[in-house]
């Protein structure tokens, strides 16, 4: 029996999400279906045999990488499977986090749709059509960020605007790229093409000055869907961007492009870090930190001549686990306090020590504190930045301090007793269903930081999908 891999990792989750959507009010059922699909498809991708043949008793399933649709193809090759495994595992992880009643009911079905569409985007041929799949994923993400019961805030409209504007730029750049390959390197059309391509990716990745929706949405929307969105879109788009470097020699060999990526990445790290440092609202700070992390993704691509692409891929799992913990703890805090300002959280750690620890560790992990998940990659990127230019390295370091500074401010207020509270004693009020996931994730964050080569290197196999970039 012959099957196509796109049916397994694109169409099957779409059908399942439809079923989950029908039963979206049945929390447990939709939770079980989404978790099983996420972890199941993730495990299947992780342990998929290289010869693409699975034998179950007398039944032999032979898988084909391509699926033709309307004269074009979706191609999920064996080489891309480590990344597919990773994004499906992540979707399962976020589904686990959605056990909290405050999470919008639309989150579980739409998160599966988003992952399936992004998978299709990574496999569609010609690859430029990916822009349309990404746009469709963006449209599906709207209900989870702005549920029916809530007010439509300006941030969500800005998110929709800016993300939608990106798609035409990418499609236009695709058309231009097909013509500029044969042109001499000094042709003005090459620069124009790179600018159009840059605008498209800049809009998608919320690069300054197109970043304004990120803090607005993170402030108003539920933290768990926000953490999912600001993790999965930059991750998939960063990987998608490697297609351009892989296929077009003039882009791959352009030193100006790498310099620009390093400069823009550093700018994002500095701005995101500094903005996060003086935020009062902890949800807005999350948004600004996400911007700084996008800066690290761009910096890693810009440092591709110094193993930057491996660091880029290793950043993905560390972001996933840290952003999940951050989003999960923020959503728990949101249901336990009236104010999400730093001052409003005075003494919170005395009542909820595990949730507070989870939040602080998530922030410190993202900031790159030693022993935690992102530290090995951040220190490698910082060293490479310093090797490239002392100025660049210094600015990356300054930007990285921003989130540390914010975390120290938050820590100070979290542990300071609140005069208005009757009791200032330390008490463990969290239930096991709350503190167990947090403690397990803290453990995972620590193990990733201690043994990065054991945990994080598997995903770097994805680079084999890009023959020119290895």
């Amino acid at each position, binding site marked *: 029996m012959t099957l196509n891999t796109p049916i397994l990792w694109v169409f099957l989750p779409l059908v399942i999400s439809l079923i989950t959507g029908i039963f979206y009010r049945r929390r447990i059922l939709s939770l079980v279906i989404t978790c099983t699909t996420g972890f199941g498809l993730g495990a299947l991708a992780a342990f998929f045999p290289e010869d693409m043949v699975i034998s179950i008793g007398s039944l032999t399933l032979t898988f084909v990488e391509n699926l033709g649709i*309307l*004269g*074009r193809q979706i191609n999920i090759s064996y080489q891309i499977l480590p990344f597919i495994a990773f994004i499906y595992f992540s979707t399962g992880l976020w589904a686990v986090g959605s056990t909290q009643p405050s999470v919008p009911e639309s989150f579980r079905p739409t998160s599966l749709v988003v992952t399936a569409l992004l998978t299709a985007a990574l496999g569609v041929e010609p690859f430029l059509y990916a822009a*349309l799949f990404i746009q469709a994923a963006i*449209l599906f993400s709207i209900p989870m960020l702005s549920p029916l019961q809530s007010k*439509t805030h300006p941030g969500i409209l800005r998110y929709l*605007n800016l993300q939608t504007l990106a798609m035409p730029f990418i499609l236009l750049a695709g058309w231009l790229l097909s013509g500029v390959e044969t042109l001499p390197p000094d042709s003005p059309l090459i620069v*124009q093409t790179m600018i159009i391509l840059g605008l498209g990716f800049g809009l998608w990745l919320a690069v300054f000055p197109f970043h304004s929706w990120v803090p607005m949405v993170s402030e108003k929307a539920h933290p768990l869907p926000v953490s999912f969105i600001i993790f999965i879109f930059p991750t998939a788009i960063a990987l998608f961007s490697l297609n351009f470097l892989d296929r077009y020699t003039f882009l791959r060999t352009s030193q100006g492009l790498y310099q620009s990526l390093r400069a823009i990445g550093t700018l994002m790290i500095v701005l995101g870090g500094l903005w996060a440092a003086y935020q009062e609202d902890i949800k807005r700070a999350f948004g600004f930190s996400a911007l700084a992390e996008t800066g690290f993704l761009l910096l890693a691509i810009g440092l591709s001549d110094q193993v930057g692409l491996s660091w880029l891929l290793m950043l993905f799992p560390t972001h996933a686990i840290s952003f999940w913990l951050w989003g999960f703890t923020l959503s728990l805090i949101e249901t336990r306090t009236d104010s999400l300002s730093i001052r409003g959280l005075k003494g919170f750690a005395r009542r909820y020590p595990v949730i507070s620890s989870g939040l602080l560790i998530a922030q410190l992990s993202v900031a790159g504190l030693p022993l935690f998940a992102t530290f090995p990659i951040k220190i490698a990127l910082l060293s490479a930045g310093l090797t490239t230019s002392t100025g660049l390295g210094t600015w990356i370091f300054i930007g990285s301090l921003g989130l540390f500074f914010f975390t120290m401010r938050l820590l100070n207020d979290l542990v300071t007793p609140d005069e208005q509270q009757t009791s200032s004693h330390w008490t463990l009020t969290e239930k096991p269903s709350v503190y167990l996931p947090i403690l397990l994730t803290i453990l995972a964050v620590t193990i990733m930081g201690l043994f990065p080569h054991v945990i994080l290197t598997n995903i770097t196999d994805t680079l084999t999908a890009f023959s020119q970039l290895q």
Partner: protein
Amino acid sequence: MDALSTLAFSLIVITAMVILIFRDWRINTAALTLQYLAVFYLVTLSWPIGLAIVKLIVGWMATAAIGLTCLRQIDFDTPAEPTSSLFFRGLAGLMIILVMFVISSTLQETVFPNVDLVIIRSGLMLVGMALMQLGTNAFPYLTIMSLLSFLAGFEVIHAALERSTLLIGLMASVNLGLALVGVYFIMKTNERTLVQKEEEDK
């Protein structure tokens, strides 16, 4: 430029100006309907009618979805605006028309030498007006209309560059998806209005 092309171009400029200036959903829905007719004609300059009609059908379906949802809502009328606001937006629209006229010829020479000037001009007009609209309003339904206009403008130009059945299908899905998001936003606003009214009555 033949007479029909000129007519389509004029229709695009007028309807884009109307959507930019006015806030009334009835006027804007009518303008968007006519706009898609002009877009359809301009796409037929590059594609066979059988394919180009997909743009018209999808466009009208998207417009109908938004228009009919607005029709079913209570208290959906936008507040009255001073004449100066209309005047300001009209002036901004005229500026966009001027800018697009100036850059369209240069763009044709440098980037799209094989594309008819009327197609570039019409596409740029829609894109420019939609961007101005996106920058000057915060109404969800107008945002969606502007995004639909923006995509229509892009599609007019892109149709002259590339033809693919999958692309047409995906673009149609994106347009309808945007319209559904618009319907979702309008319904949300109305649900909240209803809840507020019920609370006031109590």
